[in-house]
């Protein structure tokens, strides 16, 4: 049943995509109902799968189905599908968020010129994301990985008339490619050593030491590079904020909940083969990204940019958790983050939507509807949006009794315990807690600027309205899911003996010999749990308090502080000049190098070496030709030909040019042969 259902979940969106892309425009309502029907069916199936997983819980549940894709004798590639607890939860998340996005988009993109195409691409994306989730081997995962890249490219560039959108989609695509090269190298390293792409075979192979040491580390880091690209980790983080050029529901679906989570998912999947060195790389990259992105988010004015950097930061958290070994916590955070971050994006979409309408009423086309400095005081006007966003903000800030608190706490506990065991890596918890502090601060900054205080553009406030029901529906749903209670549901499930949601995924031991066992890690984390909890609560409340003083009470002036920390402020505001630096130190030198190389190739190599060689050859051939003609040709060849000519003129009489005669000769010959043979 699981395999069947998951196949349906996989292919229904693809079907919707096919229908939409070919017939979408012809269908009533541009066919959005086709996509919605498909995705809702998928959601229902996913819920059924999830329910049956809970009711008959088996920590080691696993089903696999595979078939041979390429069979060339020794070389075989088998593709297949893997369903386990992780997959089922992931499918639920993907289909849930995707459903919300579909519903939200019907209103948000109403009247768009490529409405049906948009839904088609959503279907394609959902298909490929589900494919990543369901893949049981690296190669099909890679295939779906690329498909996700393509559909992300298409969706970010949905409004490709805008140059910024087109550029952003290209940037996202190319940046991802960088990571994917690493990914592919990793895959090939592993295949070279083990001879299979399937996860099961790889884990067994690593456990039996078919691949060890530096190679394994390199392979792990390579695979992790893919995750870095997709989850926009530190050096490759530049694409995600730009990707906010796409429609907001797309940001919610892909750049908050699913696509960027694919990297984390990959990291979680490959965790058992990561060596300690690789894990350290992972942890540092994640931790640094968490703090670094959070520090950018403080100063952003664009509401979506804030959320984008927040996402990068949160993803850094998850990666950090993987790196420190508590990968179930990473997965848990992935889950909760998907819910509240998607909700935040929907909320921001709702705000932008109404801002947009309000500006439209005023015929004001210059003001940026996404700028928080133009908002303020929307609380009364958009109560549903406000409350749901508020709940999610509490969750992301890590306030107790909200989902984010649980997952964040688990991660911080893991980090803390790691640092306790390895004191030289004390920076990791610092990254973690620092990021938590800043997160609470900037998230509430965003809330306060948007919904509280006085309106900063008072002429607009009368035209701000609550969004229609189809948009607030997902908001309410996901806002409700920010409460911690849902993630403890299994605890109240009389059929299950398991407590927290996070326990649904039982950590497994790493396959790499010598890595600490899962039991060891979880014990450590448990040990550090209480300390981490208190610290994180404290940090969260400090952040909130700071934000309150800055933006509500205004006892501290934001302007004054920004002047005081001018350098930092400017760095943060300009994203640490990353794009500029990349441009200056990476792109331009590369281009210059390419030009140099081209010059060398054309001017030097081609002109002198190749042509000179040609001249030399010419000379030699003239000499040879003389010898050839006078010596060989005249005497040897012509002599032979003369003889042949003579013989030919003899045989010419037989050559009548008539087919029938030839056949006659052949048959005669045959008869003679037969007579000789027979008698």
């Amino acid at each position: 049943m699981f395999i069947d259902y998951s196949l349906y979940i996989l292919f229904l969106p693809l079907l919707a995509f096919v229908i939409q892309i070919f017939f979408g425009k012809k269908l009533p309502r541009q066919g959005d109902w086709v996509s919605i029907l498909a995705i809702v069916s998928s959601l229902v199936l996913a819920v059924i799968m999830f329910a049956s997983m809970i009711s008959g819980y088996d920590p080691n549940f696993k089903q696999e189905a595979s078939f041979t894709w390429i069979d060339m004798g020794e070389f075989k590639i088998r593709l297949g599908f893997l369903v386990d607890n992780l997959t089922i939860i992931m499918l639920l998340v993907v289909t849930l968020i995707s459903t919300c996005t579909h519903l939200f988009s019907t209103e948000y993109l109403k009247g768009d010129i490529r409405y049906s195409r948009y839904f088609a691409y959503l279907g394609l994306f959902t298909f490929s994301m589900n494919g990543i989730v369901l893949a049981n081997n690296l190669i099909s995962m890679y295939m779906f990985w690329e498909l996700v890249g393509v559909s992300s490219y298409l969706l970010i560039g949905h409004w490709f008339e805008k140059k910024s959108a087109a550029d952003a989609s290209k940037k996202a695509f190319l940046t991802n490619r960088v990571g994917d090269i690493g990914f592919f190298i990793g895959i090939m390293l592993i295949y070279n050593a083990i001879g299979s792409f399937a996860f099961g075979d790889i884990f067994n192979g690593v456990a039996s030491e078919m691949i060890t040491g530096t190679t394994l580390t390199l392979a792990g880091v390579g695979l992790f590079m893919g995750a870095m690209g997709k989850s926009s980790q530190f050096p490759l983080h530049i694409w995600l904020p730009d990707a906010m050029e796409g429609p907001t529901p797309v940001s919610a679906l892909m750049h908050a909940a699913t696509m960027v989570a694919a990297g984390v998912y990959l990291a979680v999947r490959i965790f058992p083969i990561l060596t300690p060195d690789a894990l350290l790389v992972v942890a540092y990259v994640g931790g640094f990204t968490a703090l670094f992105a959070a520090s950018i988010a403080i100063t952003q004015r664009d509401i979506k940019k804030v959320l984008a950097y927040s996402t990068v930061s949160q993803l850094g958290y998850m990666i950090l958790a993987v790196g420190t070994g508590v990968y179930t916590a990473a997965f848990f955070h992935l889950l909760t983050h998907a819910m509240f971050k998607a909700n935040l994006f929907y909320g921001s979409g709702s705000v932008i939507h109404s801002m947009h309408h309000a500006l439209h009423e005023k015929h004001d086309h210059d003001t940026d509807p996404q700028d928080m400095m133009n908002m303020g005081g929307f609380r009364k006007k958009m109560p549903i949006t406000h409350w749901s966003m508020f709940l999610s903000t509490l969750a992301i800030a890590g306030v107790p009794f909200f989902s984010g608190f649980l997952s964040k706490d688990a991660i911080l506990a893991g980090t803390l315990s790691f640092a306790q065991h390895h004191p030289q890596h004390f920076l990791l918890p610092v990254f973690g807690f620092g990021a938590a502090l800043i997160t609470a601060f900037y998230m509430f900054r965003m809330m306060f600027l948007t919904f509280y205080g006085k309106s900063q553009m008072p002429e607009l406030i009368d035209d701000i309205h609550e969004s229609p029901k189809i948009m607030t529906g997902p908001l309410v749903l996901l806002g409700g899911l920010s409460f911690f209670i849902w993630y403890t549901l299994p605890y109240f499930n009389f059929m299950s003996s398991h407590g927290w949601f996070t326990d649904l995924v039982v950590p497994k031991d790493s396959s790499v010999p010598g890595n600490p066992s899962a039991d060891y890690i979880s014990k450590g984390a448990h040990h550090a749990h209480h300390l981490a909890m208190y610290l994180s609560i404290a940090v969260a409340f400090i952040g909130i308090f700071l934000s309150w003083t800055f933006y509500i009470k205004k006892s501290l002036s934001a302007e004054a502080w920004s002047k005081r920390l001018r350098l930092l402020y400017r760095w943060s505001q300009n994203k640490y000049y990353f794009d500029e630096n990349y441009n200056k130190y990476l792109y331009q030198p590369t281009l210059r190098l390419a030009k140099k190389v081209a010059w060398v190739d054309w001017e030097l190599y081609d002109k002198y070496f190749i042509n000179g060689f040609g001249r030399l050859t010419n000379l030699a051939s003239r000499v040879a030709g003389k010898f050839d003609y006078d010596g060989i040709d005249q005497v040897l060849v012509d002599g032979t030909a003369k003889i042949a000519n003579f013989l030919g003129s003899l045989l010419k009489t037989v050559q009548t040019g008539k087919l029938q005669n030839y056949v006659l000769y052949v048959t005669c010959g045959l008869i003679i042969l037969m007579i000789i043979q027979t008698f």
Partner: protein
Amino acid sequence: MPVAEIVFWLVAAFTIISASFVVLNNQLLYSAIALLFSLFGVAGLYIFLWADFIAGIQLIVYIGGINVLIIFGIMLTNKISSVRLSQTNVQQGVGAVIALWLMILISLVISKTPWLQIESSEPSETVSVIGTLLLSKYLLPFEAISLLLLGALIGAALLSREAT
């Protein structure tokens, strides 16, 4: 003589008579039609040889394909308005003698050779066996023949294109 035997000899006679009609008739179209009957007879012989799949292939490829092609060819290369499409022969006398000799010799060989005959029973299923063989033992020839067909296709298309 059992009925089947009579039918066999009838089919054989039918085949050979049609074939000689093909060879001896001077009107091309009649030859083509006679060829059709001859091929039909050969298909009948295949059925006697328990090769029903080959018989079906013979029907489709030879009768539905090659014979129609030949008829088309005849019509394309003659003035349509003239019904009688006669043609001429060369070296008929010599040819007849040699062909007769050939036949006699081959018959002699056949009659003199002690052929090994293995008793076997009619297979219940031929198609699946042929299919399996084609994709296992004879995979390479199968691929080669597909390439050849492709080449022939392209070649025929190229040749019959108008030279513009």
